[in-house]
């Protein structure tokens, strides 16, 4: 302790230290803000293109899309209105008819949440397609959610019917063990990847529970032309 105190006087005065840190921090701030200003529009554009590409991937055949928001109190608003909430994407055929709505949900899997985009067809009240957006599932397990042919069969017409009160699904979507599917709202799991399959079911249920009642109630907003 005593020795340390004796070596102290050789220290640099305070001012050069403050000056150096001040200048470096200012320079850093300028560079970061500049980079942010330049890249923000590019990143937003990339994000928009990516979403568009994904929507047309889960809803093949659609040619145009319009973005909507489901607000926290369950209203359907055009994204352009500036409302905040869960985004959904209505996709239209070349003739301008509503083909399906892309909705997003997530469920806990083997290694964290699995986020999935589903195609919801309001006319059959069912899910007609899916695409995993984000997952940390083990390679070789998680990929099957998008590629396993038998598992894909689940998403040809997965029932997501709204109950008579119009507030929730009549039958919650659930994943069942491989080979035990009996009802159209059940997902037949992949053998050996039951945990990832369950995540998919939870994601589908979450997405549909939130979006299907709102879409059915406000269908006119989606079908009317711009």
């Amino acid at each position, binding site marked *: 302790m005593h020795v340390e105190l004796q070596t102290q006087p050789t220290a*640099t005065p305070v001012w050069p230290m403050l000056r150096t840190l001040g200048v470096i921090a200012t320079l850093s701030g300028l560079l*970061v803000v500049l980079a942010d200003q330049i*890249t923000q529009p590019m*990143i937003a554009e990339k994000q928009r293109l990516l979403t568009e590409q994904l929507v047309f991937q889960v809803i093949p055949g659609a040619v145009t899309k319009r973005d909507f928001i489901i607000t926290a109190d369950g209203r359907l608003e055009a994204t352009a209105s500036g409302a905040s909430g869960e985004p959904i994407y209505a996709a239209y055929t070349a003739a301008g008819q509503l083909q399906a709505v892309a909705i997003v949900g997530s469920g806990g899997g083997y290694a964290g949440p699995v986020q999935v985009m589903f195609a919801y067809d309001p006319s059959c009240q069912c899910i007609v397609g899916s695409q995993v957006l984000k997952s940390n599932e083990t390679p070789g397990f998680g990929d099957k959610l998008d590629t396993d042919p038998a598992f894909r069969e689940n998403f040809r017409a997965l029932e997501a019917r709204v109950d008579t009160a119009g507030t929730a699904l009549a039958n919650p979507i659930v994943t069942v063990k491989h080979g035990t599917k009996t009802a159209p709202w059940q997902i037949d799991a992949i053998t050996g990847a039951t945990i990832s399959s369950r995540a998919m079911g939870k994601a589908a249920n979450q997405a549909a529970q939130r979006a299907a009642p709102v879409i059915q109630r406000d269908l006119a907003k989606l079908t009317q032309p711009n």
Partner: protein
Amino acid sequence: MAEAPQDRATAAASAPLLTQEETLTADTFIRGLWQENPVFVMLLGMCPVLAVTNSTINALGMGLSTTFVLVFSGILISLLRHWIPKQVRIASYIVIIATFVTLVDYAIQAISLELYAALGAFIQLIVVNCIILGRAEAYASKQRVLTTIVNSLGTGIGFTLALLALGTVREILGNGTILGISLFGPDFQPWLIMILPPGGFFVLGAWLLYFNWLRLNRLRRVTTFTGAPADAR
């Protein structure tokens, strides 16, 4: 294994070239590639080396990002070297490094969101990559700008090549592809383990074994010719 970098650091500190300004030679560049390769010789930066080398493109993205940060933080630190008081140097280096890491972070998002998602938090974590702080403290803070650029490029490319050595092997064995292009056709059953974390350790271990074998072989040859042990490097 933990001893090695430290031994090297003390050896380097006593070596004359780092206490005075180095003249620019081919060795300024080559050293980082080979004799002082950050991964295969110094065993630095193991976290990204193991975590993001499950494919060639991830390895390349990580390697080039690190190189960019190495070079630009090196330039700035070298320019300011007479001007940064010793007491605040680490804080200064970290702010400078963090600035360039943020720039890379934005740039990668603007270039490819897929790559950004694949590299995840490891881009931000370049800030704490000891290769960069090591170069700042041991080289850029004492050397002229030009030699710093050349030396940082050497180290950065050495790091990138090491990541590619892991990433390519892991992608070929674990996924049967290279840069996403299928190599062996649909009948190939990939060794999934290779793109999982244990695969990173296996492949790193295999490369270290290979490079150490090369080094020992060279040492043995030199010894038999001259009758005296020589520096393996």
